[in-house]
């Protein structure tokens, strides 16, 4: 049971962080389909840092790894921002490209490093298991992970930033009606850059949380197995609002955790439902919810449309 709670919270943390990233990006008017790729790059940065910080004290490791992951995610998000904001590229196309690119690039980088160290080692894994222990505090049989706290802080911060600060309200204005925002002196391009950068920051952290959640070392060839897209579903399910996103993340995280540990529950195992069904649940639910709620969708009105000053 505590294992189920632990995984639920851990997966929910990942989903909440990444979904909040998507939320900031979309509120500024840019659809960020590249979240999956941002997660991979963030995870790569974090994993490499963990590997090189074997001996540092726990608190330092935690902070540095978080920082490096976030910065890697942001650096990668620059690619999306440049293409979609400054060059009005198709956001779906660029997001998809970034997802493919991230997995390929991460695999190449990890393999190159491994091969340079030892020519016989052609695996795409990073050895970070030692440093992983720094993130975990055991409370009885429950393993508390610092990332859960990070996700909670991010949720509260996102709520405050979006609704209680000038910056957040301006950001949302750029996603709703960029022309109107521009006419009152808000720099739409700057705001959208800020939105995408924040999504890179949160997506990067989400990536490192995701790969450290598993027991074994992560193979970079597999990317993050659709978690970026699942986070998008969480964001939509949470109707682009931080608090709702938090609850949606818990629900989706629960299903995801169930697919990992369902065999531990006698009555669930007795139902004899294959694990893949639990994996499918979150997607089916979000599709159903979308079908019933999209008529009056709460999506930012101008998301996905490149801002063109001359059309004002």
């Amino acid at each position, binding site marked *: 049971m505590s294992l189920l709670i632990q995984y639920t919270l851990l997966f929910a943390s990942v989903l909440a962080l990444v979904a909040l990233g998507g939320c900031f990006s979309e509120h500024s008017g840019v659809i960020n389909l590249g979240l999956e790729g941002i997660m991979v790059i963030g995870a790569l940065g974090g994993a490499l840092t963990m590997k090189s910080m074997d001996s540092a004290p726990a608190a330092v490791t935690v902070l540095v790894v978080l920082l490096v992951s976030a910065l890697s995610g942001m650096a990668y998000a620059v690619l999306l921002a440049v293409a979609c904001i400054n060059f009005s590229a198709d956001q779906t196309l660029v997001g*998809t*490209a970034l997802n493919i690119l991230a997995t390929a690039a991460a695999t190449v980088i990890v393999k190159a490093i491994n091969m340079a160290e030892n020519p016989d080692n052609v695996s795409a894994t990073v050895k970070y298991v030692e440093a992983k222990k720094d993130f975990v505090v055991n409370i009885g049989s429950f393993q508390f992970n610092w990332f859960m706290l990070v996700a909670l802080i991010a949720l509260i911060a996102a709520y405050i930033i979006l609704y209680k600060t000038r910056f957040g309200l301006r950001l949302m204005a750029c996603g709703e009606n960029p022309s109107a925002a521009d006419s009152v002196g808000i720099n739409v391009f700057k705001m959208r850059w800020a939105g995408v950068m924040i999504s890179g920051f949160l997506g990067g952290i989400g990536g490192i949380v995701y790969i450290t959640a598993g027991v074994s070392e992560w193979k970079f060839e597999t990317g993050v197995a659709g978690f970026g897209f699942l986070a998008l579903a969480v964001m939509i399910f949470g109707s682009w609002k931080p608090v709702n996103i938090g609850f949606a993340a818990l629900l989706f995280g629960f299903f995801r955790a169930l697919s990992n540990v369902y065999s531990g529950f006698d009555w669930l195992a007795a139902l004899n439902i294959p694990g893949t069904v639990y994996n499918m649940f979150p997607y089916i639910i979000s599709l159903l919810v979308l079908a019933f709620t999209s008529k009056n969708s709460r999506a930012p009105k101008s998301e996905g449309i490149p801002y063109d000053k001359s059309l004002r």
Partner: protein
Amino acid sequence: MEKKKSSFLRNETFLSVAAAIICILVGLLVGFLVLLAIKPEGAWAGILAIIKNFFNYPTKAAAMKYLGNTLVKTAPLLMCALSINFCYKVGLFNIGAAGQYVVGAAACLYAALAWNMPWYVCMILAMIAGGIFGLAVGFLKAYANVNEVISGIMLNWIGLYLTNMILGNVKESTSPYTVNVKGSALIPSLGLSALFSNNKYVTIAVPLSIVFAILVWVVLEKTKFGYELRATGYNKDAAKYAGMNEKKNIILTLMIGGCLAGLGAAFLYLTGYEQWSTTQSSVPGMGFNGIAATFLGGLSPIGTIFASFFIQHITSGGSYLDKSVYPSQISDLISAIIIYLCGFVMFFKLVMNRRAAAREEAKAEAAAQTPAGASVSAAAAADARQNADDGKEEGGKKE
């Protein structure tokens, strides 16, 4: 004379090809830089190995055989690209092609392995399965206002898990792979394999995929149905006002897109070239690479044929890298960069168009100084300005 030459420079096809070549060259350059960064000595040989792909083999027979392998994988890629292309012309981004491809694989493999159906039945079932997934996206879009990108992504994952579950019944007992496709379920080759040094995987799927490319072009450009679909894509409300059933058009488009992608899976899995791994945890890249091929092909079905071949050529080429030094994923990296750059194609075109327009205008002005050519050049200048406006529109109407 002068006018003819400039109109060639600003010709839509020329611009598309030029933009595609820029994307390819930059992609290859980045790949080369990555190779350089890993180990400078073998970098040049490495990038050449990727570009050469099957030409790496010294004998013609072996080269033909491996050209055959590239073609076998080009066929499904082309079908996915066509699926995306078809929908994009109607203003829909069918990112769900990846999932439609996956359920196509499930349908054709299950029919072939569990029911021992002949290949054409399997193919039709794959088409239907893909079509149903496309239909779902279209239905949600038309009647529930769900963005086709989001529903497509959700269905990709639902399709993947569903397929893993279904094909789990026909897998080898000791491995996660599906049983080999045999006998009448294999697509016939009709002598094609003899052309490729008896590569038994080369079947009529390859020419069929090209036929479909031409068919898509004809339907979109030459029929009333295609015209209606494109009109719906340009302006949904105007199409509705003109008496077209825009909801029906959206659903039909995505259904056809789904059929194309589903068929693509049959084109690969019914050759026996690949087995489905029932433990895969990510959606196969075929559908996403299709996006690359579509955009690289300048959004034209005919251009897509060449672009699909090129993307597959580079991807296969990665396996000829010296594996003790370079990871083969570098070729994925190159194709990903090419897709990324395709996002800038509109921008490239706009710049090239403006350049050409500016040059023409300057020429026209110079000609206007001399009274002899006055009337002709005035017309040319007006034409140039007109074209420049067209170019702007081209860039602006992106969304």
